[in-house]
């Protein structure tokens, strides 16, 4: 395992920027996420030499080139597999995966499923712009039905996948969500993800100004955000609205949520569900909420840690006798069934 080096000077967000010119389209949501990640790293005091960003292919996946940490821009959809190898080889590294909705849920959907259920200690950030940006705007597996794109001139006819619902279904033990331009929330969520041991999955709604501009406006634009966003916090009631005057409660007689007014003229505050981030069933309900009937749930939807994959791998290796010291190869070869031919 690697030795931690003490960095003498505290690093500022700009110290996590590489010398490469950023090449996203002007106005792309990726810029905001890059800034938020650099800020997160600075606030975490992340040692650059022990931090690795692994990405697949797509606009989002260009990310590692713009950071001054170690970075590996791999191939389309496969970043989780490579990140797993990095972590198995050196569990002491802090490994982040950056992926897109096409990268992570179409070509790489299988790897995403398995990296989550295995619970490899990685922070996985999925930039969801509901479109294939890099290949010039085809619909993606998260595109809503009816998305017009070069490959779906009459509108797409496929049902979209919800990244957080997928992650929860795959057995992820940390699932969170944020909006690209809401920097404090992104930073807060990424710091939580970083603190979580095991696979943490963060979906960031990211605006593609060129091919899918404004797809999230109905819950991200300033005038509707308070109405349409529910910021969940563990142990706090699920309230939203400009004056937190509305809330969620369990609909009587079913396993479904409903929006109810709270306080004067509404239900008593005690009726409102309190967020329990260790409750997977609640997380699934929250992940499925959609405007206009419901707000979009943001923040840490689910966090329920368990032993991480690489930790268990090394626990088994140690139990089998691995110490880091070279074991006797000669003895292994001579372990059984040998005979000697005398000179």
């Amino acid at each position, binding site marked *: 395992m*690697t030795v931690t080096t003490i960095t003498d000077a505290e690093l500022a967000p700009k110290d996590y920027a*590489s010398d*490469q010119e950023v090449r996203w389209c002007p106005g792309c949501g990726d810029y905001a996420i890059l800034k938020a990640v650099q800020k997160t790293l600075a606030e975490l005091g992340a040692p*650059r*030499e*022990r931090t*690795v960003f*692994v990405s697949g*292919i797509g606009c989002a996946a260009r990310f*590692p*080139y713009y*950071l*001054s940490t*170690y*970075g*590996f*821009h*791999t*191939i389309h959809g*496969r970043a*989780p*597999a*490579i*990140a*797993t*190898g*990095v*972590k*198995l*080889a*050196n569990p*002491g*590294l802090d490994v982040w995966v950056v992926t897109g909705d096409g990268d992570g849920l179409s070509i790489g959907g*299988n*790897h995403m499923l*398995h990296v989550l259920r295995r619970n490899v200690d990685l922070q996985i950030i999925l930039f969801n712009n509901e479109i294939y940006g890099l290949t010039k705007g085809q619909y993606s597996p998260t595109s809503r039905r009816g998305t017009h794109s070069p490959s779906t001139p009459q509108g797409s006819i496929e049902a979209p996948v919800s990244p957080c619902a997928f992650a929860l279904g795959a057995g992820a033990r940390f699932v969170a969500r944020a909006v690209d331009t809401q920097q404090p929330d992104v930073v807060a969520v990424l710091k939580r993800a970083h603190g979580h041991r095991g696979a943490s999955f963060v979906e960031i709604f990211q605006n593609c100004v060129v091919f899918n501009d404004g797809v999230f406006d109905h819950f991200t634009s300033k005038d509707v955000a308070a109405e349409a966003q529910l910021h969940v916090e563990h142990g706090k009631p699920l309230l939203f609205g400009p004056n937190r005057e509305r809330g969620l409660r369990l609909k009587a007689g079913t396993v479904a949520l409903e929006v109810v007014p709270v306080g004067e003229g509404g239900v008593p505050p005690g009726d409102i569900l309190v967020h329990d981030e260790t409750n997977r069933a609640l997380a699934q309900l929250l992940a499925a909420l959609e405007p206009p009937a419901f707000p979009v749930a943001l923040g840490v939807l689910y966090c329920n840690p368990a032993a991480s994959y690489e930790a268990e*791998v*090394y626990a*088994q*290796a140690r139990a*089998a*006798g*691995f110490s*880091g010291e*070279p*074991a*006797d*190869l*000669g003895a*292994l*070869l*001579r372990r*059984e*069934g*040998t*005979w*000697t*031919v*005398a*000179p």
Partner: protein
Amino acid sequence: MATASTLRARQARESVVIRFAGDSGDGMQVTGSRFTVETALAGNDLTTFPDFPAEIRAPAGTTFGVSAFQIQFGARDVMTPGDAVDVLVAMNPAALKVDVKDLRRGGTVLVDTGAFTERNLTKAGFAANPLEDGSLAPYQVLKFDITRLTTEAVKPFGLSSREAHRCRNMWALGLMLWMYGRDRQATIEWLRRKFADRPELAQANVAAVNAGHAFGETAEMSEHLVGYTVPSAPAEPGRYRTVSGTEALAWGLLAGMRGAGLEKMIFAGYPITPASLLLHTLANLKAYGVVTFQAEDEIAAIGAAIGAAYSGSLGVTSSSGPGIALKTEMLGLAIATELPIVVIDSQRAGPSTGMPTKAEQSDLFQAVHGRNADAPLAVIAAATAVDCFEVAIEAVRIATTYMTPVIVLSDAYLAHAAEPWRLPEAAALPRFPVRFRTDPTGFHPFVRDPATLARAWAVPGTPGLEHRIGGLEKDYDTGHISYDPDNHARMTQTRAAKIAGIANGIPPQQVSLGDDHGAVAVVGWGSTYGAIHRAVSEARDEGGDVSHIHLRYLNPFPRNLGELLARFEHILVPEMNAGQLVQLLRAAYLVPAQGLSKVAGKPFKVSEIVQAIEATLRSPHPRSPSPHRGEGARG
């Protein structure tokens, strides 16, 4: 144990081929393995090959449920499991039906008459009982009721009739051990260890072995029940064991990891026949620094190997043809990022799913050329089970010295075949310690060693060397993304030159048998080694001007190969594919190489190669102009 019977009856044999065949449940693999150990201990050279059914649990008594184990052993170098069987042990009618066709005329077949019931005969598809209808007339048939004899031998131990029945293989083993004058001690000890917690089973099995042995020793000698002696083969002094290709690969990878001075190997695989065996073997070597990872597919497996290499461990992945095909895009990434991984391909018959349990050498093109764009990598092949050890070490050496993926070609035959191995001293194994880059001065990810052209191996965790790599083309001088046309040409040439330069660090091609010039060079690669070697040896005994050249390095070829081949009139290339190496040789050296192809899912017989050599010796010189040999004439 010079008893009266051995003195009376034993005849000498140079070498013998035995095949143990029975139902999947009859324990033929165990029987064969125990016979192998006793034979090795008796000092014979040997080669073994198991042939198990593709079905996991085929219905008992059916022909597709037959499991067989073949061994050739002898007093001289034994290099193949043997063309024709001398002794067939057939534990039931289905085994007789499947395997008798490989028995040489005049060979011996031992059958358990107790298993030749009406029901078993029907299941095996016999209309009449072959023991009675004269169809076995060309052979010497030993008919014993092994079922009854075993039941009697194990009676004192109170086994269930099912358990008693399962001791039949040990009775047959005992008889075969007697027939070849082998000891039983190692087997008896092994049985006691194996059934340590069921002493009655241990005793019963030992009693069955002893009963079979005593039967040979004391029975009224039928004219066919003869004992033989097979003198021991001359062997260099040292400590020996038998080793299968899979074991040798696993241990070779470990030795390679040690040689490179690496602490850990991350071995990632996805189950596939016949490559899974290596995953299973390595999964038991965690104490030695092996981390095995069963990935979700072959792509993820090579991905994890690449991630591990990026992080400074030995990254290894293994599969068979279809899985190697899935790894293709990742190989391109490893080539572009110049990361050292080892990819082992246990080739099997194809295309597509093909015949998963049958060996073929048809992935050579895939290994050498099977990627998009100009994407060179190193390809080497193992010739024998023992050779797998050195080849694995060599793969690690090339990968880490040149920062490149290396494909090792093995096959379904080598994965299972076993032979005696003189164990190397751990201290004498090759060392080629890697040097991780630590110095930030002048560093960028594509700074190269001027001699090898290998880029620096700079692993995450190293302060001051933070850098970004990926599949996008990189600038030669800075390592940054580059779309510059001249730079791409330069990087393409550099990647090619680096792989070509591996030839400077490998031994020149040797001739494994015969002169370095002459009428015919038989050029092979991979597991055909034994058959070609024996065939060339036989042809030479008949006065043929023939040499055997066997290639370990398939990309790049050894530097002297073209010049060496040019010194032969004919180049004959036997391969278990439709002709792949033959094309590579023609392309590389413009030589009139002729292929000899076998794609039957079975290894070459020595006789098949001998015939091809004889035909080649009789044919005109291909380089002399002849209107009838247009193809060859272009050399």
